[in-house]
């Protein structure tokens, strides 16, 4: 009797759970924290961009290797003086509410973004505070938008495409209510807004009338047809729970760390997709520190670290050493960028002797966030530096505190992961500049800043490559930081999930992804 009761209870519970998992065409993906808002490029973080870029699109977007391509624009004509950009819109594109896309929508979205009240993140890039100012935007006919700049900028289209700008999304005006308050994104993306249960999940539904570009998936452009009815981003902050949910089949896919990779690969129900991303794992130096201002000390540190071994250990053998600011996945990653630091402990010892190093302490600041290798990297570097006689400590702090130290420049050395930039000029811009004005900048070299200015203005690919090569050489010579390797985009997938691939942008793209019945 007791046994029957137990069985009945168990069956009842299984039925309850089974009922919850009955939606076969829902693709469930883990997010490690909730999104901040539904307003693209406004109140956002990486997770917010990741979700919203399934619903909204802009005139331009990034391709698979970080190159900028038209998305809602069919083509872009740039005037000879580089000041006038004429966008011709694609025909037949409709918003989620059925309205057709016209130049009036582009104009409306632009004006909303450029209104300071919107607090669009990228407003300073176009209002004259940045490289160039957009002096006028006009819509001469329903399919054409013309943007006028005050001076040429090699970064104009790339900035429009930036994911943290929400891809400069073109929204339908019904996205805001009569009071002008943002309600939800009515965009042109392959998925439309479903339900947002704060702290639990956000679900998006397939947009059946989506007008996809032809061809295969290509970054945020190319073929973008949604193949499942619903995608559900489930918020799970704990990495151990994420793994358990993947193993049990409660999740279809989730980003995992290098440390988890062997376990995930060994599981019969799971497979993985990996690709190097544009994030950078670095050991940066405060070049104004009394010890580290001597370049010989920094060069000694670079020679004392066996970067290949460090990368192999922290990434569980999956990472590829790269000492360049430019990602290994970028089209600009050429032979010049492959020339990096060489492991030479004897040289390190000699450089330390020449610099008069006498056991002065060096502290590396690190954090223990689960998705970055900051702590592991610091600990291994510490051991390698101790091996050449350096006195190195590792100070672990919470992310917000470390960020404050980074921003104020109050550190000697820091194990840090830079967020992804698609364009190399933007990657160099992250680290290069005047420390008096921006203490967060690790590389304060006027000539490098001048070269960077040229790269930001230049539009020609070959000329830009030459500038990046020069910048890389100076960077390696001066060692303001040691770039160890690019982060890895590692997605664990249930065997039933088909059509997914990781990429340089790291953010998952759930179009073209299906679930095998």
């Amino acid at each position: 009797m007791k046994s029957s009761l137990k069985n009945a209870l168990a069956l009842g519970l299984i039925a309850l759970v089974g009922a919850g998992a009955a939606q076969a065409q829902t693709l469930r993906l883990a997010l490690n924290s909730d999104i901040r808002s539904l307003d693209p490029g406004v109140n956002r973080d990486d997770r917010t961009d990741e979700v919203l870029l399934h619903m909204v699109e802009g005139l331009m977007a990034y391709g698979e290797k970080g190159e900028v391509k038209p998305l809602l624009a069919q083509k872009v004509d740039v005037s000879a003086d580089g000041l006038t950009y004429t966008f011709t819109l694609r025909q037949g594109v409709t918003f989620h509410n059925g309205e057709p896309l016209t130049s009036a929508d582009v104009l409306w979205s632009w004006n909303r973004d450029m209104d300071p009240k919107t607090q669009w993140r990228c407003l300073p890039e176009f209002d004259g505070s940045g490289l160039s100012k957009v002096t006028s935007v006009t819509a001469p006919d329903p399919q054409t938008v013309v943007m006028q700049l005050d001076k040429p900028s090699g970064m104009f289209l790339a900035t429009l495409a930036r994911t943290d700008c929400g891809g400069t999304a073109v929204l339908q005006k019904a996205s805001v209510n009569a009071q002008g308050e943002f309600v939800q994104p009515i965009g042109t993306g392959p998925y439309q807004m479903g339900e947002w249960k704060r702290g639990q999940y956000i679900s998006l539904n397939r947009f059946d009338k989506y007008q996809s570009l032809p061809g295969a998936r290509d970054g945020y452009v190319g073929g973008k047809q949604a193949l499942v009815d619903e995608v559900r981003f489930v918020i799970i902050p704990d990495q151990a729970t994420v793994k358990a949910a993947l193993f049990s089949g409660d999740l279809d896919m989730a980003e995992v760390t290098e440390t988890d990779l062997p376990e995930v690969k060994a599981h019969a129900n799971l497979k993985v997709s990996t690709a190097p991303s544009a994030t950078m794992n670095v050991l940066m130096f405060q070049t104004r520190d009394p010890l580290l201002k001597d370049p010989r000390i920094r060069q000694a540190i670079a020679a004392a670290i066996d970067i290949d071994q460090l990368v192999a250990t922290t990434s569980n053998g999956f990472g590829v050493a790269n000492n360049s600011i430019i990602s290994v996945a970028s089209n600009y990653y050429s032979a010049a960028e492959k020339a990096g630091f060489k492991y030479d402990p004897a040289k390190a010892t000699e450089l330390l002797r020449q610099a008069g190093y006498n056991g002065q302490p060096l502290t590396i600041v690190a954090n223990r966030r689960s998705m970055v290798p900051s702590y592991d990297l610091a600990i291994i570097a510490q051991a390698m530096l101790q091996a050449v006689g350096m006195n190195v400590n590792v100070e672990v702090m919470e992310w917000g505190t470390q960020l404050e130290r980074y921003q104020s420049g109050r550190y000697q050395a820091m194990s840090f992961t830079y967020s992804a930039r698609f364009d190399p000029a933007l990657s160099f811009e992250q680290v290069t500049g005047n420390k008096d004005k921006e203490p967060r900048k690790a590389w304060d070299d006027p000539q490098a800043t001048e070269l960077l200015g040229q790269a930001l203005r230049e539009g020609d690919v070959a000329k830009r490559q030459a500038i990046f090569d020069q910048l890389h050489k100076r960077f390696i010579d001066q060692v303001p930081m040691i770039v160890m390797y690019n982060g890895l985009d590692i997605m664990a997938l249930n065997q039933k999930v088909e059509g997914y691939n990781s990429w340089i942008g790291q953010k998952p793209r759930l179009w073209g992804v299906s679930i095998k019945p």
Partner: protein
Amino acid sequence: MLRLILQRLAMAVPTLLLISIAVFAMIRLIPGDPALLMLGDMADPTRLAALRQSLGLDQPLAVQYLIWLKAVLSGDLGVSITSGQAVLPLILERFSVSATIVLSAVLLAALIAVPLGMLAAWKQDSFLDLGLVTSATLLLSVPGFWMGLLLLYVFGLELGWFPVVGYVSFKEDFGKALAYVVLPIATLVLHESGVIIRMARASTIEVLRLDYIAHARAKGLSERSVLWGHALRNAFAPTWTLIGLILGNLLGGIAVIETVFTIPGIGRLMVDSIYARDYPVLQGSLLLITFVYVLVNLLVDLMYPLFDPRVKI
């Protein structure tokens, strides 16, 4: 009694005020602010200053506090910096999720652990007592998150009886909701049962040694009658205080359990708020929890005479 209630509620006001000052000061002593965290590694000084200004973080701390306090006194706990939601409905919604789990867990733990503790006391120094005390010590020694992960592994992953992640509210679907909260409730019940068993046992042993129990036995009453009729009420009084304290603690502190089981409760909200430096949400949550703590203790005190007739209110 009404006077006592009013008196205690009035006493809560300075407590809440002091808590609010302490919380306000402490969270701001942690380096980093919400503007910095929102902009991340791309925060240029101009943009950072503009964002700080728009969030009111450029004002002196005392001014920020007074602005916040003035709003709180008019019933407005502000708006979340990260999500833009009004704080009061947000924390009430999250608190109700935590409260459902905590109240169920504490009730179940009390129903299971009090009789077991008394049984252990009654059979003091027997193998049963030894077994119960050992189990109780083990249960209260095992960290809650580890117990949670273990249950998740066995009943979620290996046996597949319960979902591993997610949450459904009872308002939406009672059956589904039950499946999602069984494991977190079980984790709390197991952990808190250990504490309650030990307390119930200790206080029962103490009561069983008193003269009036010897007198009852001398009258020829059965052991069952002595235990349940005479010892229970007196032995339960200290346990009741403990249950009140556990309830108060858990209502503000099951963040780890909520994180392991992906429950959108107030504990997880507070942890997220600390990481994001979402000052309004954190301040509002702690105020609410302090108030609930005061309220729970008041209720415990008011119910004390039910168990110990010597206490008069």
